[in-house]
C-alpha cells in the first residue's frame, strides 16, 4: 500500500494550558477529498492551524510526503505545498484582487505565476471582472472565491479548506461544492472541513468526525453517511 500524502498520528495541541486536540489520527491519500466533520468547537480549525504551522503541536507526528513537518514554520509548510484557505478567508483587503492572486505564488510556483493566474481567472470568471478592485470591497462570496483562487496560485499539493461554504447563499453553496469537486478532478488533493454534512459526504472519499478534539468516527464517505451516531448527532434522525 502506498504511503498516504498526509499522515497525522497522536496529535495533541491547544492554546495556553488548554488542550484542544487530544490525540488526533488521520490520513489523506493523494487525489482524495477527505472530509473533517464536527460540531462547533470540536477543534477542526485548530487542527488546520497546526497543520499549517500557525499553532504549535504539543505531541504527535505530522508527516507529509513521508517527511516530518510538525512545528515547521508556516512558510516551510507552504513551500511543501500545503495551502490553507482559512475560516474568515484572510484575504488582503487593501490590495487589489490581482495583487491578492499574485501573492498566492509568493513562496511557491512563482515561475508559473502567469499560467496559474489565467487558470484562477478561468475558474472564477467573476474575479477576472474585478482584478483592479480592492479585495476588501468584494462581497463575501467573492472574497471566498478570491481566497481559493489565491490558494490555487500556489499549485497546492494538499488544499485545506476551512468551511468554504460558510456565509454563502444556497445557490453559491451548490456552486462551491461543484467547484471543489472540479478542483479535485483536476488533480488537487483536498482536506475539506465542513458543517454541511450531507453535501460534503457526497463529494468526499473519506471522512473523519471530530468530537472534543478526538476522532470518534472515520471511514469511507458512504460508510460514515450510514453511521447511526452521525445521523443522530448531526441530522437529527
Amino acid at each position: 500500500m502506498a504511503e498516504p500524502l498526509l499522515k497525522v498520528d497522536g496529535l495533541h495541541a491547544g492554546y495556553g494550558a488548554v488542550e484542544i486536540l487530544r490525540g488526533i489520527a488521520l490520513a489523506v491519500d493523494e487525489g482524495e477529498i477527505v472530509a473533517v466533520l464536527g460540531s462547533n468547537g470540536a477543534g477542526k480549525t485548530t487542527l488546520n492551524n497546526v497543520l499549517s504551522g500557525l499553532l504549535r503541536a504539543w505531541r504527535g507526528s505530522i508527516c507529509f510526503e513521508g517527511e516530518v513537518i510538525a512545528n515547521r514554520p508556516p512558510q516551510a509548510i507552504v513551500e511543501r505545498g500545503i495551502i490553507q484557505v482559512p475560516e474568515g478567508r484572510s484575504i488582503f483587503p487593501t490590495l487589489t484582487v490581482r495583487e491578492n492572486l499574485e501573492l498566492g505564488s509568493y513562496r511557491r510556483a512563482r515561475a508559473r505565476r502567469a499560467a496559474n493566474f489565467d487558470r484562477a481567472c478561468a475558474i472564477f470568471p467573476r474575479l477576472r471582472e474585478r482584478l483592479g478592485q480592492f479585495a476588501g470591497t468584494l462581497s463575501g462570496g467573492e472574497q471566498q472565491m478570491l481566497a481559493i483562487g489565491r490558494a490555487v496560485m500556489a499549485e497546492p499539493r494538499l488544499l485545506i479548506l476551512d468551511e468554504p461554504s460558510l456565509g454563502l447563499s444556497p445557490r453559491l453553496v451548490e456552486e462551491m461544492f461543484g467547484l471543489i469537486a472540479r478542483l479535485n478532478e483536476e488533480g488537487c488533493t483536498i482536506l475539506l472541513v465542513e458543517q454541511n454534512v450531507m453535501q460534503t459526504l457526497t463529494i468526499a472519499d473519506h471522512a473523519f468526525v471530530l468530537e472534543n478534539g478526538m476522532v470518534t468516527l472515520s471511514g469511507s464517505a458512504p460508510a460514515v453517511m450510514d453511521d447511526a451516531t452521525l445521523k443522530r448527532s448531526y441530522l437529527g434522525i
Partner: protein
Amino acid sequence: MVEAAIIVPAILNGLTTGAVYALVALGLTLIYGVLHIINFAHGALLMVALYGVYFLYALAGIDPYLALPIMIPAMFALGYLLQRYVIGRAGHGKDENVMLVTLGLSIVIENLALYLWSSDTRTIETAYGFATVDLGVALIAVPKAVAFVGALAITAVLWALMRWTDLGKAIRALARERRGAQLVGIDVEHLYAVSFGIGIACLGAAACLLLPSYYASPHIGSAFVLIAFTIVVLGGMGSFIGALVGGLIIGVTESLGGLFLGESLGKIGVFLIFIAVLLFRPTGLFGQRV
C-alpha cells in the same frame, strides 16, 4: 506688504527642507503602517546616520552624495538587526513594551553618541557647500537643490518598490493581514525586520542629503523626530502620499514661520498645525477613516 522677492525663496527653501523631512517621515510612517509601532528611536538613528556620513567624509574622504550607496544598505542592515534581534525580541508582541524599547534605545544611542563623539557639532566643508543655482525667481543653495531632487527621487523609488514588487506587495499585505501573509508563505518575522530596515534606510539617505547643508550632533535627532511626528499625523498615520505632502507643507510652514516670526519662534506654525490636525482632522489629510 511683504515682497514676493522674499517670499518665493522662502517657499522654495521650505520645499527643499520639506522633501528631506518627508523622507524621514516616510520611514516613520512605513514602520508604523506595517509594524504598528511608533519608533521613538527614529531621531536617534538619523543622528547615527549623520555621524556615519560625517565620518565617511572626515576619515575616508567620501563625498556625502557618493556615500548614498554605502549609507542606505548600512542603515537598512542596522534597522533589520535592531527589529529582528532587539525590538522584536524584547517587545514580546506587546505594543507598550515595544514603545518603551524604542524609547530606551533612543536614550542609549544618544548617550553613547555623547560619550563617543562629545557634544560638539560637526560640519563638513564641500566644494559645492556655498554654491547656488539660479532658478530665475530665486537663488537656491546647491546642497538644498540636490537634497530636494534626491529626496523626491528616493521617495519615487520607494513608492515603486511598494507598489510593483512582490516585496512591496507582501509588506502591504502583512500590514493588514498577518495570518493571510503566513498562509501564502511570507516569513513574517523576516518581513517585519525588512520593513523596519527600509524605514531606517530612509534615514541613511536623508543623512547623506542633509549633511552638506547641516551638521551632526548627539541631540540633533529630537528636533527631527517632533517634526516627523507632526508630518505623519498631518499626512495620516501610515500614509505614503501623506508623508510626502505633509513633509512639503511642514517644510514651507517652518520656512515662512521663520521669515515672519524669526528662527526660534518660527517653529510655532508647525505645532499649531499639529494641534489643529489633532482637533479637526485626527485621521490626517490622507488617513483612512476608522
